[in-house]
């Protein structure tokens, strides 16, 4: 087949314009034309990760300029990453829900209830950590199933269902923990999640494994696409991407491996366990969304549910299962948040957690209108949110200013999303 298309394309190019007959698939794309395509994508409203990366650079520069000796210190970077954990994980679950064009307002509280279940089992029942964790995750899964069922089968708008859950689940947390009380978490494994670091050697090994796997997958994928005559980005772009990501992973590992203890007697360094957890979740979610039929179906249902239904996709099941995934990841987030506090509280997840997580996903590039988004959006957006909170904290900003600024950022991200969508539909057809 490739022979016939190749023999036909020169003839066709004489008669037809350049935009025809799979020209773009067959020609080896140059870096300049790839950049031009990217420019066109940007102008048509597909901003991707650009706002988040720009935001990180600008905010990073700003806070470094204002607090040069503290903001970029080893301690603060590690601190910032750990601060970012709960919101980032919560946002990753929300990406799934947002991909369908739905919302889960109860995600934060779901995390809170799951943490309460975990803490109660650990401290009051004396269960081992793995059973308690399993119960916590199961709580999230069950909440997600009920939410998804109410949305997909009964047809209640997700906004309303999850608002009801937002209130109802707070009641469950209160019932489990008791008014005004907290349940302490003393289990070593759970506490380590947000408070301990991976041994240095293990951290380096993992970092190199990630780098080699990422580079291998990128280059091998490109080579395979080339030999099979598939459309592919220019090699230079693939190499650049591999180099940048590798430098980030290795640089981050190196930074986190240095001693950040205030006292010279003890050593404190290494990658926090929670960061590893986020990395694992990121890999799993990226694989699920990008490489499996199930992930493809999520995008299809978010883009055009009717088209998905006619294509034979079980739309109801996709909806229910996506809420189950979102709530289970929310449960993980709740457990990490509880680990950071060393305790479960009845008001966990009831404050700004959810809005920050939605903001993180949207800042990262996930659309509120469904059908567009990636797992990495949660990580990029989560970092932006954490940098804002951390930087404002270093500046000694008052609580009211933190609320105002973070709210403003969320609104800004949502405006960019809405404008980009208008742009897309205007240039799309």
């Amino acid at each position, binding site marked *: 087949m490739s022979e016939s298309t190749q023999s036909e394309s020169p003839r066709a190019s004489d008669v037809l314009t350049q935009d025809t007959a799979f020209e*773009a*698939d067959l020609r080896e794309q140059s870096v300049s034309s790839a950049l031009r395509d990217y420019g066109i994508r940007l102008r048509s409203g597909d901003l991707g990760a650009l706002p988040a990366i720009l935001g990180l650079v600008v905010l990073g520069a700003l806070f470094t300029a204002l607090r040069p000796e503290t903001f970029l210190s080893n301690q603060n970077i590690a601190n910032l990453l750990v601060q970012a954990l709960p919101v980032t994980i919560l946002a990753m679950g929300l990406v799934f829900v947002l991909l369908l064009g739905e919302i889960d307002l109860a995600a934060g509280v779901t995390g809170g209830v799951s943490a309460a279940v975990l803490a109660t089992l650990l401290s009051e029942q004396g269960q081992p950590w793995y059973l308690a964790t399993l119960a916590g995750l199961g709580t999230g899964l069950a909440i997600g199933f009920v939410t998804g069922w109410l949305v997909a089968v009964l047809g209640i708008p997700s906004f309303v269902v999850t608002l009801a859950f937002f209130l109802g689940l707070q009641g469950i947390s209160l019932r489990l923990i008791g008014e005004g009380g907290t349940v302490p978490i003393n289990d070593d494994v759970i506490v380590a999640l947000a408070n301990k670091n991976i041994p240095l050697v293990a951290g380096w090994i993992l970092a190199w494994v990630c780098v080699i796997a990422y580079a291998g997958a990128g280059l091998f994928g490109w080579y395979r696409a080339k030999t099979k005559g598939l459309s592919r980005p220019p090699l230079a772009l693939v190499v650049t991407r591999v180099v940048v990501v590798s430098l980030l992973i290795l640089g981050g590992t190196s930074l986190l491996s240095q001693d950040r203890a205030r006292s010279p007697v003890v050593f404190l360094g290494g990658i926090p366990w929670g960061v590893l957890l986020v990395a694992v979740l990121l890999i799993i979610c990226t694989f699920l969304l990008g490489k499996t039929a199930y992930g493809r179906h999520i995008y299809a249902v978010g883009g055009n549910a009717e088209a998905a239904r006619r294509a034979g996709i079980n739309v109801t099941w996709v909806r229910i299962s996506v809420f189950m995934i979102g709530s289970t990841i929310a449960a993980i987030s709740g457990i990490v948040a509880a680990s950071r506090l060393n305790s479960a509280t009845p008001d966990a997840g009831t404050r700004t957690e959810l809005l920050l997580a939605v903001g993180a996903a949207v800042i990262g590039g996930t659309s509120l209108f469904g059908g567009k988004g990636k797992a990495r959006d949660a990580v990029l957006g989560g970092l932006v949110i954490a940098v804002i909170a951390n930087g404002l904290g270093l500046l000694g900003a008052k609580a009211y200013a933190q609320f105002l600024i973070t709210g403003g950022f969320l609104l800004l991200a949502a405006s960019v999303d809405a404008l980009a969508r208008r742009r897309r539909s205007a240039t799309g057809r």
Partner: protein
Amino acid sequence: MTSENGTPLLELQQINKSFGAVHVLHNVDFSVYTGQVTALVGDNGAGKSTLIKCVAGIHPVDSGYILFNGEKVGIHGPRDAAALGIEIVYQDLALADNLDIAQNMFLGRERKRGAILDEAYMEQEARNTLARLSVRTVKSVRQQVASLSGGQRQTVAIAKAVLWDSKVVILDEPTAALGVAQTEQVLALVRRLAETGHGVVLISHNMNDVFEVADRITALFLGRVAADVKASDVTRSQVVELITAGRSGDLGLAASTAAENI
């Protein structure tokens, strides 16, 4: 290619269908031949859509037979129709804007290797199918559908229907929303579908389109077949009369039947 005297690829015999008290289809006979374009014409409410939905398995028929390659078949759901090789391209195209062309063409029937999508196979096969239909208007099968023109979208929807080794392709008003140049492209594609050995059904209001591509014309009038003729045997005005009055000269329903239904 099979002549009209040969066995039709798809044949409906004496189909009746009622919705409650409303008798929508009266003893309808309808045939589709391999390598030919059969135009199904009729006014709004003549029963075109109902007939197609019976073939698609969306509505069960009350009485009558459906024959595929001369053998009686039961179509009890969309999956039965798809299994026989009957694909329908609906008017609202049922493409997901946020996916690319290859992803849309394989939507719901993705090819996998183990648990992982076989992107290489799907991309090549999507390109091959478009090339087989001589589609030359697409820059890349990795383009998002959102960036396509109306004609290109229609093209993708049709290519999606033929990807699955289909025998009968039913097109519901494929040119209704298109401009002149794009209509030409789509009509050329319809012709090519027939030339590549499909039985094609074209539902259309546009007489220009019908006479440009159709080999046969079946006119429905208030749920009855007014005429089933070769396109070369009739004129445009005769077909318009058949659609609006159910008869034209000695063609069409008996005067009494036509009158009693009006």
